[in-house]
């Protein structure tokens, strides 16, 4: 099976050049190593539906459920990885489309664990398309890169100027409670995102690149004293973005803070970026949820229910 072009292009990234060795187990990008997921949402009457679903293991979505009490019209899909985490040689491709006027939420079942690697790497390409007046909350759970792992991700977003997208990544430094060397003990983490209108130029792009030899990890301006961080974007029309920014109080205590956070404007008026740095995942999650609540209230006029106790 030929690798999808966008996924194949990731293989050429400079930062992957030391890691092109073949795993001793199943061949990299071979049969069984390419997970694929395609989700399409559209509006049907008063609610939105999952009208298109294509999946190839180890990625899995079963069906859309409607359990959000604040937005009963919202189809919710949970991405499940039947492989128990990302392994060396894995290639993932996720496409999510929300058509005009529809809404959707896509989350993941649990933390996205990137397992230890002694050969090759894992890569993921995501395409997210949000149509006119559409609304998508795509908030995967924490990514935990294990010691020695290598992961590259590219997310390409195409958003109508009237569409709204809440999307972001929450990252942990490693299995910090498992071993001292787990803290930023991975070999490579490369996470890029780009935003544009259909057929337009790139309006915002950002690449987070952390390589093993980075000497600044414990600098006070980088991650000193913290183990988790999140970059959450709210792409929205300028008026809505302004209201959200106005309401979100930045959080920066100087006395032993659990988490610090703030919201900044993205270039070319595409929306906002929430930055959070924290000690534990729940510290960061709390700030993300505070932002999420404001986004949903301002974007949809709907409440965000209390978080489930098992999260």
């Amino acid at each position, binding site marked *: 099976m030929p690798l999808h072009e966008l996924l194949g292009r990731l293989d050429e990234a*400079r930062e992957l050049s030391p890691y092109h060795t073949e795993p001793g187990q199943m061949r990299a990008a071979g049969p069984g190593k390419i997970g694929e997921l395609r989700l399409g949402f559209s509006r049907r009457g008063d609610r939105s539906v999952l009208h298109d679903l294509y999946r190839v293991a180890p990625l899995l979505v079963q069906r859309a459920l409607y359990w959000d009490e604040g937005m009963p019209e919202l189809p919710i899909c949970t991405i499940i990885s039947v492989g128990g985490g990302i392994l060396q040689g894995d290639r993932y491709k996720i496409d999510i489309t929300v058509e005009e006027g529809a809404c959707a939420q896509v989350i993941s079942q649990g933390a996205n664990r990137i397992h230890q690697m002694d050969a090759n790497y894992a890569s993921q390409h995501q395409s997210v398309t949000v149509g006119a007046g559409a609304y998508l909350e795509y908030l995967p759970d924490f990514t935990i890169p294990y010691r020695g792992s290598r992961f590259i991700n590219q997310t390409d977003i195409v958003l109508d100027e009237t569409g709204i997208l809440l999307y972001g990544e929450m990252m942990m430094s490693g299995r910090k409670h498992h071993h001292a060397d787990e803290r930023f003990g991975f070999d490579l983490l*490369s996470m*890029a995102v780009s935003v544009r209108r259909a057929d337009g*130029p*790139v*309006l*915002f*792009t*950002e*690449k*987070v*690149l*952390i390589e093993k030899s*980075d000497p*600044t990890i414990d*600098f*006070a*301006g*980088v*991650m*000193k004293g*913290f183990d988790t*961080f999140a*970059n959450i974007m709210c792409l929205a029309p300028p008026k809505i973005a302004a209201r959200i920014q106005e309401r979100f*109080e*930045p959080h*920066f205590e*100087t006395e032993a803070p659990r988490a*610090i*956070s*703030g*919201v*900044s*404007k*993205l*270039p*070319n008026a595409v929306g906002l*970026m929430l*930055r*959070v*740095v924290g000690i534990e995942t729940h510290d960061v999650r709390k700030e993300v949820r505070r932002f999420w609540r404001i986004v949903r209230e301002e974007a949809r006029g709907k409440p965000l229910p209390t978080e489930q106790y098992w999260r």
Partner: protein
Amino acid sequence: MDAGDDTIRSAAVPNMVRLGRLLQFSDSTLPVGAFAFSNGLESALQTEVVTDPASLREYVELILRQSARMDGIAFLHAHRAAMNGDHDAILVADRAIWCRRVGEEQQLMLARMGKKLAELALKIGPFPRLERWLGDIKSGATPGCFPVGQAIALAELGAPESEAFVVHQYGVASMILSAAVRLMRIDHLDTQRILFAAQDRVADDYHAVRALGLDEMAVFAPIFDVLVAHHTTTRVRLFMN
């Protein structure tokens, strides 16, 4: 004096003039508005990320590293484009910086200093490429990021890219350090000591990024990123970022 001396003398003249003008364009008193910006230092002090000369030095090191791996890459692309007379490639580098800059005050610094630099240069000497770029800024065709303007100006002065890169990095460090003198308990000797030491890394930074493409502009400084958001909402402040 024989003819050989004359040849050596006339060959040295352009280099000496170039060096003089490079010094002028890297001087912190060059009126492009750098004095109004602290590059996040004001918030770093208020939040105690920077507290003393040692932590200031670390902060400067971090910003220099970041600056090389983000703006520095586009700076080198713009410099090469200006040397080759490729105006479209200059605009590509300009947009590459702009679409990566998060935070309204960071964006303000980029655009305001870029435009000021072009206006200043055109008042003091002939800079045809910079003039065309300024025209595009005024018509809204390009954002006008400072590092791109600086790259064009230095290319027009005949500076090779490695020297131009030094000027770019030096400007970043001197902006933070001149803000530091006004913001924290530190004397001029300490800031000069930090500025002197900071030059040690410039060759490594240049070699780390010189072959990289615009798509490879990357960063990782989450606490700094929160500081950028923090400053926008601070009530008491001396600087614009």
